[in-house]
């Protein structure tokens, strides 16, 4: 029987560019370049490796986002995923993590899955809670923040490196997995992969397809509110000295003045 893997990915603003807020205090997507969240590439990579080790597997990559978010799907398809689902709807604008996890849960259920794989966090919001919320909504085990993952005989196992301990985890499928940037370098799409991706199916869904109401998602359905967003003043230039042999002592003097010594 085919192993159905769904990878959830996010289209995010490029962190090396200037990221800002729009007037409604949501992310300004107008003037920034977007891309597949770097941390999601690790999820796609692990999906490909798990699929390689299975007798028969199919990888569907899912995203929720505006038109441009198709770029993130194309990247994942060019790496080797088989098909894609794009959830796009004007009413999704301003969704918080609760809304996004609801939409993803519906999309994943509709697609059908044995294993859902996510990155450890997005590189824009950086909350890192979506995989756990997805597991809660789907009612399946969460096997999250794995630096190593494998699937065999309907069981997913992995290693989670925490602050105080490293844990070996095990759960039966279906399950939600998230992987860290330690899980293994993500492959670069080959030219063949990029050409093949153009022919792979991308299904577009809106809220109606997912049987969701507009007021359950987007700004209207958000359970949190941003009251203000202020650009942090640039740090005022501090003292920079050139080491002429006494740099360490000068630095110690500074630290003593600040009462760190």
């Amino acid at each position: 029987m085919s192993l159905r893997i769904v990878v959830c990915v996010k289209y995010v603003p490029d962190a090396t560019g200037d990221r800002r807020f729009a007037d409604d205090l949501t992310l300004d997507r107008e003037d920034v370049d977007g891309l597949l969240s770097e941390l999601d590439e690790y999820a796609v990579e692990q999906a490909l490796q798990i699929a390689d080790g299975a007798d028969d597997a199919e990888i569907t990559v899912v995203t929720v986002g505006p038109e441009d978010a198709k770029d993130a799907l194309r990247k994942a398809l060019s790496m080797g995923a088989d098909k894609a689902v794009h959830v796009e709807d004007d009413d999704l604008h301003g969704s918080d993590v609760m809304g996004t996890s609801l939409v993803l849960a519906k999309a994943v259920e509709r697609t059908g899955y044995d294993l859902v794989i996510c990155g450890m966090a997005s590189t824009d919001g950086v909350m890192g809670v979506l995989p756990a919320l997805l597991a809660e909504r789907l009612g399946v085990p969460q096997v999250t923040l794995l630096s190593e993952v494998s699937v065999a005989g309907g069981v997913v196992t992995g290693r989670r490196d925490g602050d105080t301990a490293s844990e070996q985890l095990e759960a039966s499928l279906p399950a939600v997995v998230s992987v860290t940037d330690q899980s293994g370098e993500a492959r670069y799409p080959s030219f063949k992969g990029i050409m093949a991706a153009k022919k792979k199916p991308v299904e577009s869904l809106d809220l109606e397809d997912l049987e969701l109401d507009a007021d359950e998602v987007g700004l209207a359905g958000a359970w949190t509110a941003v009251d203000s967003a202020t650009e942090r003043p640039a740090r005022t230039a501090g003292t920079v000295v050139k080491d002429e042999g006494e740099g360490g002592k000068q630095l110690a003097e500074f630290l003593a003045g600040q009462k760190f010594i």
Partner: protein
Amino acid sequence: MAEVLVLVDHVDGAVRKPTLELLTLARRIGDPVAVALGAGAGGTAGVLGEHGAVKVLTSDAPEFADYLVVPKVDALQAAFDAVSPAAVLVVSSAEGKEIAARLALRIGSGIITDATDLEAGDEGPVATQAVFAASYTTRSRVSKGVPVITVKPNSAPVEPAAAAGTVEALTVSFGETASGTKVVSRTARESTGRPELTEAAIVVSGGRGVNGAENFPLIEALADSLGAAVGASRAAVDAGWYPHTSQVGQTGKSVSPQLYIASGISGAIQHRAGMQTSKTIVAINKDAEAPIFELVDYGVVGDLFAVVPQLTEEINTRKG
């Protein structure tokens, strides 16, 4: 006064510092009721009471150690039902955020993660966050349900405040999903004797300029002279010079210490994302053009192999 639920982060009864910081913040919005789970939970009551916990709800069921995350969500939900608090506060650790998020979903509440400050507001607690690699500061509220907020370490001072700290056993009935993810084995991280990176008041980090694992003892010696934690940039971690658990940055740990010393780190945006909220920033780098110097309160353009040992020696001398 309204009660505020605080989930306790502890290791075998030893309460970790970020929980004591949470108690300081919790007192701004109500009376803290602490929830301590797992082996040694009862042993936390003394110190929690000294820091303002009016009540400590404990459960040491084996499920907390045997299965991942969900048993603690079940327990926190039981505490929530028993207390009916005005807010729930959890430390922004990886596990803390997952527990908080699942609880928030279950009780129909919004969640705010990685708050760096918290105060009472007309419409409930207002949380401050640093976003987009700390280039923006936002103030947010939970607009639906009882606010569930996770708070970053070093966001508040630890302030003693005597309270009853009455211990009560928490009755938890574990749901079907609680045993979904089995913890097959657990290997405790070897203690370095240094403070935990995310909660340390001072962090000393090394990067590409350290030029090899064999040179990291220089960074460690400086850290030890200051009682600091050791961090590393992604370049140093990827090169295998220092463990990933010490990585500071967007894909590593986010730190916000009183003092951050970057040695041989150029200051790529991904690194800055993880340390930019540090109160005082110091850098040592031989490249005067390194972007890290845009952030510093004090910078030394020079060879870290000369500057760092001199600094360490000077600190040790001054400590006498």
